């Protein structure tokens, strides 16, 4: 089914964001359709981070509206975003190195048991972690390993895997392959494709054209805080995208 025929799950209309006199974003429209992988590309300072932080609830837009599943919404905090079903995998990973895999998997939202609601349900933590990792085909040494001893790719897999059980409909990934080797990048890209198969939409910020063209269905290009390109992958080429990123007049 053609994604264009459906309603967007997330729609940003006329978004502007000013930091004092700096116009980080200027009248940007941005849509994400169900089960679609959107790559957000642009040079440093193009406004990519600002845009995803607005979706993730870290920043509030100066102007513009956000619609989620056709309803106007306001996202005031990361918590609001999570409640809507928008999960973020941060570039700096946000894992606790001195804790094991299940502890990181459920960081900040440990399942509880008992009437008091303060006791951690450790059995459920381990079982859910095992199930989700298995579902995603993520292989880790063993669950009790401290995150400190995991490789970069394993950490990224864990950081991505842990947003899964929360019923996230839109998953934002900031440079998911930035610090990874070739094989590890491949795994993370596979994970992104799997998320799509499981019904999620994914927004990927990346500098790597090969990775972008590997996974994305659509590519949105920002330059100087404005949207300068919005192309389906099959209708464009890496060359064209690079031209849009740097500005065609330079070539």
């Amino acid at each position: 089914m053609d994604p264009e025929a459906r309603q967007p799950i997330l729609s940003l209309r006329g978004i502007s964001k000013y930091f004092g006199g700096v116009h980080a974003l200027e009248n940007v429209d941005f849509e994400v359709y169900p089960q679609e992988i959107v790559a957000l590309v642009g040079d440093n300072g193009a406004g990519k981070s600002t845009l995803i932080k607005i979706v993730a609830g870290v920043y509030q837009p100066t102007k513009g509206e956000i619609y989620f599943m056709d309803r106007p919404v306001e996202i005031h905090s990361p918590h609001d975003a999570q409640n809507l079903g928008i999960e973020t995998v941060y570039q700096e990973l946000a894992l606790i190195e001195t804790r094991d895999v299940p502890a990181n998997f459920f960081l900040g939202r440990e399942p509880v048991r008992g009437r008091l609601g303060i006791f951690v349900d450790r059995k459920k933590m381990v079982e859910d972690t095992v199930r989700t990792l298995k579902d995603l085909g993520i292989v880790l040494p063993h669950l009790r390993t401290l995150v400190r001893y995991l490789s970069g790719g394993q950490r990224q897999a864990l950081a991505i895997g842990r947003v899964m059980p929360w019923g996230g409909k839109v998953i934002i990934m900031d440079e998911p392959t930035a610090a990874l080797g070739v094989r590890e990048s491949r795994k993370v890209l596979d994970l992104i494709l799997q998320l799509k198969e499981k019904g999620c939409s994914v927004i990927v910020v990346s500098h790597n054209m090969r990775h972008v063209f590997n996974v994305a269905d659509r590519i949105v290009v920002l330059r100087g805080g404005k949207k300068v390109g919005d192309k389906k992958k099959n209708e464009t080429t890496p060359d064209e995208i690079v031209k849009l990123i740097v500005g065609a007049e330079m070539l």
Partner: protein
Amino acid sequence: MAKDKVVVSTFALIPSLRSIVLRGGSLVGVIALSIAFASLSPHFMTLSNWLNILRQVAVVMILASAQTMVIITGGIDLSVGSLLALGGCLAAVAMSYWGWGFVLGSLLGIAVASLAGLGSGVVVAKGKIPDFIATLGMLGALRGVSLLVTGGLPVPSHFTATQLAGYLPQVLVWLGSGDIWLIPVPAIIGVVVVIITWFILSRTVFGRSLYAVGGNREAARASGIDVDRIKILVYGLSGLYCGIGGLVLVGRMNSANALMAEGIELQTIAAVVIGGTNLFGGRGSVFGTLVGAILMGVLSNGLNLLNVQPFWQRVVNGVLIIAVVVFDQWRRRLGE
């Protein structure tokens, strides 16, 4: 599915094995010291001496349990001794001069110590003051408050001890120096506190948040953990533990004074570090701290039995702390 279960239970075995190895250092230390002292003094390996050691380390055990939680968050509480004195003195004054009785007096002491602890927490979390500085300030200030409360005199003092209300309740004295079937009551309280602390750290959402805050504060925040709240609560809990420790110490001495347990913060920190808890936060176990406290107790008891001057014991304790941190760094480098 059945296969998953097997995997899960295998994983569950691994940490206990590894943490035994990790904690092995201090346990081996206790055993080696015991063998050495036993061969040097005929009085060391006796039941009554070991009960003595347990009685002596009980208060350190309680305070070091609090210190373990604070250090796991990446903080440090230098005010534990002052919190103990404040709680103990207030409770003693209320019981012996104001006629409040054991229950109300104890509650007062514990409540005020907890509030003072919460105060440190607020200063650290909201005032963005380093933990070290905030609790160093509290160390001085709360000693002063204790001196004001007691007028610098022991409680009860000989001026008032002749009055009817001038004595501490027998229950309090029993808490500090009684026995149940040979086992000193303070040691039982100490071990119960350690077990409760273990339970908090490993089984509650709060305990897990302590590790998260100490392991990576930004990640904790990004995951929706209220870092400030956790910080404030852990210092409040430290105050509560110190209040309990104060009651035990006052009971043991049958007297309170504003300068009691001075310098105990160093002993608690030593017990925590000897026990393998990371001084920079994120990792640690209260059972390690228990072993650390016992090691310190054995050391000072043994030196006493060998008639080593008490002045030397301070030197030994100081050097021990440094040696243990050096050992810990070395062990960590090997681990990575």
